[in-house]
């Protein structure tokens, strides 16, 4: 774990190809990229702040907003879809009272994500980074209860 942005920047040369790795580490370490940190990154690479946000906002794994304490991700790839992924999504939506994709609730969020390459173990559900494999629709509320 890193305490400051500078510690992360020290590990990289200021070449454009290091922008994405730096942002990756920043997002993983601090949860999201805030403006102050992004400005420091921009100064280090001698580019505009907009350029940093332009890159950061494109990628799914980089967060530019603070994540709520409960984030549920459900894989909707073809294989998981044949194994009831959308029924699991329905149970989650009813249980938590938010719709997938809405991010106005400060406490919880449900996200549909693209295939994670774990197709043989589907359907996949990720709660706050912990991966649950072969989830059954009737077990969903049992899993979610631990996180509330």
């Amino acid at each position, binding site marked *: 774990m890193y305490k400051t942005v500078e510690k992360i920047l020290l590990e990289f040369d200021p070449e454009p190809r290091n922008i994405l790795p730096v942002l990756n580490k920043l997002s993983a370490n601090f949860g999201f990229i805030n403006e102050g940190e992004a400005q420091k990154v921009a100064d280090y690479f001698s580019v505009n702040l907009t350029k940093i946000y332009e*890159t950061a906002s494109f990628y799914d794994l980089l967060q530019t907003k603070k994540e709520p304490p409960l984030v549920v991700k459900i894989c909707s790839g073809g294989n998981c879809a*044949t194994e009831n992924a959308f029924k699991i999504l329905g149970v989650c939506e009813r249980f938590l009272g938010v719709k997938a994709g809405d991010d106005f609730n400060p406490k919880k969020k449900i996200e*549909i994500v693209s295939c994670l*390459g774990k197709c043989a173990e589907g359907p996949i559900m990720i709660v706050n980074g912990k991966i649950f494999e072969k989830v059954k629709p009737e077990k969903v509320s049992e899993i979610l209860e631990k996180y509330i």
Partner: protein
Amino acid sequence: MAELKIITENWGKINPQKIEDYLHTGGYTALQKYLKEINPFDHLREIQEIKISGLCGRGGAGFLTGQKIEAVFKEKSAEKYFICNLDESEPGTFKDRMIAENNPQLLLEGIIILSLIVKAQKAFIYLNGNFEKAKELLEKAIADATEKNFLGENILGSKWSLEIEVFQGAGAYICGEETALINSLEGNRGEPKHKPPYPTQSGFLGKPTFINNAETICNIPWIILNGGKAYSQIGSKCSPGTKLYSIGGAVARPGLYEAPTGITIAEAIDLAGGIKKGKEFWFAQIGGASGKLVLEKDLGERLEYSRDCKIPCGSGAILVVDKSVDIHEMLLSWTGFFRRESCGKCVPCREGTFRLFEIAKRLQDGEISERDEKAIQDILFILDNTTYCPLGKFAGVAFKDALENFRDQIFKKEKS
């Protein structure tokens, strides 16, 4: 004849963390053979071998590797780059992740040989951002190989050097497209660029760049050891070799299987133990979310890369769907995927995928109107013909096939 396995032969037998295990199974003999027979002024023999082998790209498009390598080789630039495309995010495909997790040294050997042929001094492995385990294993493998001097300065006493770096992406499907991948590597948004110039002429930092799928690279050591002619005898005529098939859905044993190209779809499903007990075959989808649907009557089609085949092999993913599945959920899965992953550069794809997703949602809710029915045809036509890169072109393929074959099930839904 026993099943010939080129890539998966030693999987499970060797420890992916130990380079010694790989050396025991004859690892790096291809590199040694290549360096011994090398003529510093003429790499054309190796290129000829690869051309004779007929090896074609395993990422989905099936472009001939021999042609690509010749194009990069002919460029007269002092600086060249090599990129291994491991940004695998096609739904239902997990072959490249399994390669990196089961035998990373085989991948490295292939990268080293190809980089030396085109005289690249720096190679990147562009890894999908979600593959944490693969990243650790690859970095360990690179450190081990450098220690044994298969990598780094003056490889095995020769005058060539190579550095390999693992570059982790951040979860964007479009970065599997080669120009988008280069954009992402340069620190930009992963949007595709116009071709030509092709990356073989002007790629990473404007220098000639040789981009290959990880599975393609893994075939190279075998070709160097056994010759291109032997390779061209395996599998189908137009795209020889073996292929990794990721088979999932309603089959008895979902997983990854290696088999020659040119086997029929029914044979591939049998590899995975056939249809699961108690389930009834409805249709199969070949090549992930952008792949075509296959009904029972077409199960005899061969899986190969050719311009005039009915079912393109794509990434080699086979999804078997049984009759208990709701077609509306599949439509949501496909359209939702392309809506999320469309990069937003061109309007037809950005808007088309979004509207298609909205219509799929309304179909699910049983609120479809006459206007939507007409709009679907327009959207599918525009996606097919006017988008900037192949992502948009393939976004409507599965939807269109489903509409042709299961029109009644799609539109006959009671309002829920």
